[in-house]
């Protein structure tokens, strides 16, 4: 019998400490996220029914029981009514989704070959390439968007270069256009496309290619029949990682977009900070949240399948 201090008796009681540890590890992050991530959405929803006033905070409470009977319900659908009536918002939502979709597609078209190339590289090259992909990400994204401002402006580098080469006579309007927004989004989000794609492609068994080739498939066919379907999890993850946040993107449309590049993130930000209309901003946010809920659930499903 080992002379351990733990003696096994006929009746066993599990020490309390084990249960506490488990509850602690699960409970604390759970509670934090419930309080600071989930609960706030409920508050946004609540305030979307308020009315803006000049006060601190700049909106009315939803119920006021001190006033007379007919006036106690201060909550109102006004904000939502305004959203549906004013064309601006419909256009913004639609434009945002369209812009995000197109940008995601471009990201995929550029990012897939890059991820593929990195996955096929030798070990040392691969690590260097990965580092090169991640490096821009570690530097300020704000400043990288700013770099494009310098490049695309009327007095910017690209225009100067083209004019000096004699290809154009007067500077092109590149900044403050939709093209610039696409460019900005693709530029910022491409690491988010490359990394999940790379992760999936890297796990693929290279002998599958050889097997297909052995059975008579040309390289292009191997790609479509074998590589593409198997990399689908990476494609889905990467696309959602770009598409969903891009819908609500603010900085890129604000810096690179024109007056007519209406993105909902910018609209929301302006309602809040410029018009100081918190309830309307909340309504905008609520609708945006409803729009992204389903893609987010798809994303969560794709993350789970990876396990």
């Amino acid at each position, binding site marked *: 019998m080992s002379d351990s201090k733990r003696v096994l008796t006929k009746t066993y009681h599990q020490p309390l400490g*084990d249960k506490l540890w488990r509850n602690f590890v699960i409970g604390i992050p759970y509670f934090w996220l419930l309080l*600071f991530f989930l609960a706030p*959405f409920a508050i*946004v929803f609540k305030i979307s029914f308020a009315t803006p006033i000049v006060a601190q905070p700049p909106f009315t409470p939803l119920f006021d029981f001190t006033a007379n009977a007919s006036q106690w319900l201060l909550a109102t659908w006004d904000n939502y009514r305004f959203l549906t009536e004013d064309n601006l918002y419909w256009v913004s939502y639609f434009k945002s989704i369209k812009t995000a979709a197109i940008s995601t597609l471009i990201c995929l078209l550029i990012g897939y070959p890059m991820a593929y190339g990195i996955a096929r590289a030798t070990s040392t090259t691969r690590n260097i390439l990965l580092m*090169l992909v991640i490096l821009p990400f570690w530097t300020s994204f704000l400043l990288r968007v700013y770099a494009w401002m*310098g490049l695309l402006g009327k007095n910017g580098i690209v225009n100067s270069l083209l004019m000096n080469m004699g290809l154009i006579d007067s500077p092109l309007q590149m900044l403050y256009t939709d093209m610039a927004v696409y460019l900005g989004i693709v530029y910022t989000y491409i690491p988010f496309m490359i990394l999940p794609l790379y992760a999936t492609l890297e796990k693929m068994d290279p002998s599958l290619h050889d097997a297909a080739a052995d059975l008579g498939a040309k390289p292009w066919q191997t790609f479509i029949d074998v590589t593409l379907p198997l990399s689908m999890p990476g494609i889905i993850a990467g696309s959602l990682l770009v598409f969903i946040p891009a819908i*609500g*993107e603010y900085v890129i449309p604000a810096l690179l977009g024109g007056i007519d590049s209406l993105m909902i*993130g910018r609209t929301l930000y302006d309602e809040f900070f410029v018009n100081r209309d918190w309830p309307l901003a909340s309504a905008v946010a609520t609708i945006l949240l409803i729009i992204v809920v389903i*893609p987010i659930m798809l994303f969560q499903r794709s993350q789970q399948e990876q396990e």
Partner: protein
Amino acid sequence: MQKSSRFVFSALCFGFAFLYIPILVLIAFSFNQSAITSVWGGFSLRWYTALFNNEQIIEAALLSLKIAATSATFATILGTMAGLALTQMGRYRGRLIFTGLIAAPLVMPEVITGLSLLLMFVSLQELIGWPLSRGAGTITIAHITFSMAYVAVIVQSRLSSMDQSLQEAAMDLGGRPTQVAFDITLPLIAPSMLSGWLLAFTLSLDDLVIASFTSGAGASTLPMVIFSKIKLGVTPDINALATLIIGTVSIGIMIASWVMFRQSKRN
């Protein structure tokens, strides 16, 4: 096979050029004597001196670094706990919701997170009197919230590729769950925790939208200051700032890679 290899190779070249040319241009023109970016006026360090004399920027930078370090540390702790909770603790009620709570911050548009957190702080203030005022503290809480999701994903990924039997062996030898966690699990996921910390630090340092929403009077982070400057157009001292940041980060990454390379050689 040759044609597709050439295609992939040129795609890689184009892609990396696309990624790096703006950065390189930025760096080049930070040394430009002229204030107009398209005209090269000669080599000069004037923008760097202007930068170091700019108190607003220096203060904002220090604040951002402070917030980044604090939020990264707490995000790593919470994110690691979340990662453990999702991979090690078996089944429990509400686990599915928990996975959603960890996945959603990764893709949630920042304007929504920012607005909702601000409204939460306002409501809390009304209800319980805290937070008294918004500023560095509320920004930090906001950053912890979204960063911990990233840390959780990194830790989760490492845990799922770890040999499960290591922890079972520790349990089998008499280790209680707390002991197994500190003796075996944490040492083995330490590198992932470090990556998570660095990622959280970067995300915090870089954040504009959420900080704008959750900040208060007098608390301006570096991105907020930069943004207010560049909204109006290109200003060369920002080039200098960008170069410094890029330079520091690049050197940091290269040192880290070199250290990791040496470590793997030793093994």
